[in-house]
């Protein structure tokens, strides 16, 4: 008798039980999704907003070295105006883009055959070769740049070897004592290509590995020689991989600080160096922020292009049975 009464009267569950039940129902899913968003908000969006705000401030001999509303208006657009007026920034941007674009192109030319080769070897050889592609990451990046500095120096065996090859090929009166490699854009591009090559190879490999080899056979069956098969089938189908690899190389190469700082030409600074100098040496935080914001927008363009292509590829895949 007492049991049935108890069943009929509704007793509100404890507050903690309700929370626990909600948490079991959807809390885990929400938490999992929220974590990266919280991370990005705290460590990317918030700092970016601070930097953006700072780029509209004016430099003052205070601590921190900027204030708002020093001039007529609260916001100061002069920093952005200087980006276009001062040749230093324009040149730095151009040099950065040129070096990064050249490095990206070379990475593609070197990385594509390597990635394609990876897909065409036996599975056991493939694992070893993939290991070798990733292996440089196990050594400090800085150490590897220093190694290149040693190689490129005028007294290194590498430089002497190249010099003797050069001297052997040209008439005697053109002979040189050594090749100037250090502190040139050549050195920047060379070390950038070396450092970022895996970032080109891995997405390309992931893309090429998924390609159906029967398509190659079909093209060959329809009269295409191997090079035409490559141009007609493999290359067009690997465009998403090329774009992914190019973005992964180009974007960080553009803002690269360490490589041009160590092996680059100090009179031709890249944009990362300019930002660093403005912050640290010139203590012009607003100007440094403006350059950073400009760099970010310059990078967002290609990034959006990439996500656009990626979304299109996904859409296509979803439509396939």
């Amino acid at each position, binding site marked *: 008798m007492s049991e049935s009464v108890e069943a009929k009267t509704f007793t509100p569950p404890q507050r903690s039980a309700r929370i626990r039940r909600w948490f079991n129902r959807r809390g885990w899913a929400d938490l999992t999704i929220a974590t990266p968003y919280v991370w990005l908000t705290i460590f990317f969006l918030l700092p970016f907003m601070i930097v953006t705000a700072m780029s509209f401030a004016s430099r003052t001999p205070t601590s921190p070295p900027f204030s708002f509303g020093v001039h007529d208006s609260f916001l100061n657009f002069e920093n952005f105006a200087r980006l276009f007026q001062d040749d230093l920034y324009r040149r730095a941007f151009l040099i950065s883009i040129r070096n990064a674009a050249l490095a990206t192109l070379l990475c593609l030319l070197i990385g594509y055959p390597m990635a394609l080769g990876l897909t065409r070897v036996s599975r056991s050889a493939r694992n070893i070769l993939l290991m070798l592609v990733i292996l440089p990451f196990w050594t400090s990046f800085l150490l590897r740049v220093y190694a290149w500095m040693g190689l490129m120096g005028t007294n290194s065996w590498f430089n002497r070897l190249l010099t003797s090859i050069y001297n052997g090929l040209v008439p005697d009166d053109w002979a040189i004592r050594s090749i100037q490699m250090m502190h040139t854009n050549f050195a920047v591009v060379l070390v950038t290509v070396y450092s970022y090559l895996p970032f080109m190879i891995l997405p390309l490999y992931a893309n090429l590995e998924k390609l*159906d080899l*029967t*398509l190659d*056979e*079909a*093209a*060959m*069956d*329809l*009269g*295409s*020689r191997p090079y035409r098969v490559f141009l*007609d*089938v493999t290359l*067009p*189908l690997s465009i998403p991989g090329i774009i992914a690899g190019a973005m992964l190389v180009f974007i960080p190469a553009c803002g690269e600080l360490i490589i041009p700082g160590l092996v680059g030409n100090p009179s031709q600074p890249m944009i990362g160096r300019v930002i660093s100098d403005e912050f640290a040496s010139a203590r012009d935080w607003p100007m440094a922020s403006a350059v950073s914001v400009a760099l970010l927008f310059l990078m967002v363009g290609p990034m959006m292009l990439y996500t656009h292509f990626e979304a299109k590829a996904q859409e*296509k895949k979803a*439509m*396939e*049975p």
Partner: protein
Amino acid sequence: MQAGVQAEPVRASAADPAPFIRIDGVSKYFGTFRAVENVSLTIRKGEIFALLGGSGCGKTTLLRMLAGFEEPTKGRVFIDGQDMTGVPAYDRPVNMMFQSYALFPHMTVEKNVGYGLKHERMTDAQRKDRVREMLDLVQLSQFAHRKPHQISGGQRQRVALARALARQPKLLLLDEPLAALDKKLREHTQFELMDIQHKTGTTFIVVTHDQEEAMILSDRMAVMDKGEVKQVGSPTEVYEYPTNRFVAGFIGSINFAEATVLSVSGDLAAVDVPALGGRVTARAVPGIAAGQALTLAVRPEKLTISRDRPDVPNAVRGVVSDVGYFGRDSLYKVRLPSGTVLSAHSANARRAAEAERVATWEDEVWLGFDPSAAILLTG
């Protein structure tokens, strides 16, 4: 060979008796694995030839050797009198329709069909005409500008066919052409495929694991097992006159029983079959002698089932142990006194209620068969 569609219909009966394709002692080994072992076949111009066998029997490897994707370890392949040894796939007068269709996903239907024509010496207008002609042939003209992922599976199959036929190959290879289609569509497409073959007169070699498909489609077929050809013949020959146990068992269902030859007299042979409880008369096959052990085989539909002893030379008594009703026919499993169970198919020609049927569970029945229905297998 102008415009294939206008070519005279050529069927096997009217075909040139000289072999058009000759496979001469071809073997293919992958390491120690013998994928194809000493296969010799001749295929006539304009016929549909089926390579039938289970998975791993070597039929696809044989097809790939014809296409030029694999080189034979031993032996040679001749197409229209030309030795194909060392000729790469892109130089062979052969096209293939792949099991997965292998349509280029980044090209439209039209571009897919026209792809092989890029290498042909013809004007752009001729190319366009050919593509249109091919799309008409497979009734896909209105889908010319779609991408492969925007059309259905059956349409994709037809695009693959049109693409393979566009170059007017001397030989078309079809790798499991209907395997990816559902049952209804498959039946329809079978006849469509035969119709297109009829119109173009192209020689077809079809690889299939589906015996019905091979029977319906082909003029002749080769049954393969473990890399070897077990029998070559028309569907009727292979079904009604199998030469060995593998072929008899692979195509359709069949009852086997061990037998010993008692005597041979002219067309007929008397054999002792312990499983059937004694003497059976069967049509003799060449090269058998008294005392020889062989296998007796009878197709289930050749066995008659009745309550009373039938008036045929061979009759055995048994008890119905199982009945399967399929609608148009019924399968009876009859247990003989020896313990052997024979299957008998009986067409439900009359409309009858369950109780009126010839036999049901645990009924005593007679199974009879004519000597001509009994197959003697020595291999």
